[in-house]
C-alpha cells in the first residue's frame, strides 16, 4: 500500500491516534475518527479518508466501506448548516411532507442538495426520537419540534445569519 502525505492538522491526527489507542484494535475507532474529521471539515474528502485509513492501519477502501455505510457520514461537501428533516412515520403523520415542500420552495433546493450560497444543506433523516413534538428536524446539533411553516422561516433566517 502506498503511503499518503498528511494534510490533516497535527492535533487532529494526534486525536485520531488517541481514539485508536483506546480501542482494542485501531479499526474500532473508524467511525469516531471519521466523525472527528467531519466535525472539523463538515465532510470527509477522499484525501482525508486516505489519511484516516493510514492512521488506523486500514485500507482506504475498507474505511470507505464504513464511511459510505452510515447515514451521518458525509462523503460529499455540505453547506455551513445542515437541516435534517425527519421523514419517519410520526412526522409524516403530522404533515412533514408539507414542511418539506415549503423548505424546497424557500431554499430552492431538493433534499440532498445545498443552497447555491453554500449556507444550507437539506437532508432527510429517519426518526429523531422527537415524535411527541412531530414534525421535527435537526438543525446542526439542535433539535426543533412542533414545526410549522412560520417556525421554519424563522429557523432558516437565523441559520442564514449564523456563520
Amino acid at each position, binding site marked *: 500500500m502506498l503511503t499518503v502525505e498528511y494534510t490533516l492538522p497535527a492535533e487532529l491526527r494526534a486525536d485520531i491516534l488517541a481514539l485508536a489507542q483506546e480501542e482494542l484494535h485501531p479499526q474500532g475507532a473508524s*467511525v469516531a475518527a471519521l466523525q472527528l474529521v467531519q466535525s472539523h471539515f463538515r465532510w470527509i474528502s477522499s484525501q482525508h479518508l486516505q489519511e484516516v485509513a493510514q492512521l488506523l492501519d486500514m485500507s482506504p477502501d475498507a474505511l470507505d466501506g464504513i464511511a459510505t455505510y452510515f447515514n451521518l457520514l458525509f462523503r460529499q461537501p455540505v453547506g455551513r448548516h445542515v437541516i435534517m428533516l425527519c421523514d419517519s412515520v410520526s412526522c409524516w403523520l403530522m404533515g412533514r411532507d408539507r414542511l418539506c415542500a415549503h423548505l424546497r420552495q424557500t431554499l430552492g433546493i431538493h433534499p440532498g442538495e445545498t443552497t447555491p450560497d453554500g449556507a444550507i444543506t437539506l437532508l432527510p*433523516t429517519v426518526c429523531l426520537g422527537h415524535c411527541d413534538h412531530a414534525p421535527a428536524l435537526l438543525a446542526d446539533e439542535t433539535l426543533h419540534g412542533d414545526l410549522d411553516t412560520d417556525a421554519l422561516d424563522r429557523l432558516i433566517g437565523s441559520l442564514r445569519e449564523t456563520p
Partner: protein
Amino acid sequence: MTAATHPLTAMITPAAPPPDCAAYEQAGGWQAARKALKILAPAEVIDMVTRSKLRGRGGAGFATGQKWSFVPKNAASERRKYLVANADEMEPGTFKDRWLLEGNPLQLVEGMILAAYAIQAGHGIVFLRGEYHLPRKRLTDAIEEARQKGWLGENILGSGFSFDIHLHSSAGRYICGEETALITALEGKRATPRSKPPFPQFSGLWGASTVVNNVETLCNLPHIVTNGPEWFLSLGMGADGGTKLYGVSGRVRRPGAWELPIGTPLRQIIEDHAGGMLPGYSLRALLPGGASTAFLDESALDVAMDYGSVEKAGSRLGTGTAIILDDRTCPIGMILNLEHFFAQESCGWCTPCRDGLPWVERLLGALEEGTGESEDLEELARHARMLGTPGRTFCAHAPGAMAPLASGLKLFADDFSAHISQRGCPLRHAA
C-alpha cells in the same frame, strides 16, 4: 410522582438539567450499587433480576436475568467481558430512551454498574445514536462525574470490581440497534448482523463475552436491587413486573411519554394520558410499539400493554410507544412511509430484505400514485408472507418491516382496493 410508583422517572424534572451525583444520591441513587458491590455476590444480583421477571425493554422482551445467565461465570479480571447499553433508539415512533438519557443519565450509569457486576464485565459501552446530541453531552458529563466520584474505574468502593464506561456515538443506521449488528459496528466494521450461535454472551465484541441491554432495561436495575424483586413485580398490572415507559404520537391531544405500570390498558394510555384524539379526528388504527409492530384497530383498545397480551391481540409490545393512525390519513401512505424506512435501513446483507423491501416500497408508491394494478396486492401479500417469518431473512429487520404491511393488508383491504379502482389515493389531499 414518587420513586415508589415511578421509579424510572421520579428524579426527572422536565426542561431542567439532570441530577448531578449529589442530587442523585440524595434522591436515593447509588444505594443499589453500594448494596450490590458491598454485600451481594454477582449471582445474587442475577437471581434478583431473574425473580423480578424483568424483560428486555428493547423490543424483543427477552428475560434479562436469563440472558445474563448464559455469560461464562469467570470473574471480570479473568476474562474480557463487555456490557453494552443499547441507546440506538432509531425505531420510528420511539422516544422513550431519550427521556431517560437526558433526564437522568446517572441512573443508566448505575444500572450499567449493576449489570456489569452481575455478569462480571470490566468494560461498559454506551452505544448512542449519532443524532442524540443533548443526551451525548449529558451522558458524557455524567460518566465523567461518576468516574471522579469513584463510581467508575478501578476497584469501585474497594470491592475489587473494576468497571468503566466508554461512550460510542453511532453514525446513523437503524440496524445498529440489532444487538449483533451493534457489536459489529463497535468493531468499526460495516454494521451487518451476525449469526447466532455463537451468542454474544459467549462470543461478542472482539470475540469476547458481551451482553447488550436496552437503556430502559438497565435503568430498572437500581430499583430492583434497592427495593427487591417482589416490590418490582408488584408494580406491574399483569404477568410482567415493573413500570414501562409508554408513549403516544400522532394526532392526539397530548402526544408524549409516561411511566406507567406495565400492563396498563391501551385505552387508558391513549385516552387518559394522551388526552384522546384531536378534535375532528378519530382513531383508525395504531401501531402499539413502534414501526415494526403490527397494526391494531379500535377493537384492541382494551388490551393490556404487556408482552403476552399484546401478542395475543396480534401484535407486539415492542418499544411500548404507540403511533396513532387517524381517520383522515391514508393507511397506505403510512405503510409506504414505514416501508421506505425499512428498505432504506436494510443493511444489504441478505437478499430477501435487501431487494424485497424496495420492491414493496415501489408497489406501495405505485398504489399511491395511481399506477397500482390488482396483481400488486397479491405481490404485496406474497412479500409479507415470504419476508415475514423469522428465519427466512438473516435477522429480524425484514420480519419487523412486514408486521405493519401484513396486518395493514388485512385491516385496510378496502383502502388498498380503492387505490387501484380510483387510480390513486382517495385521501391524498384530504389530510
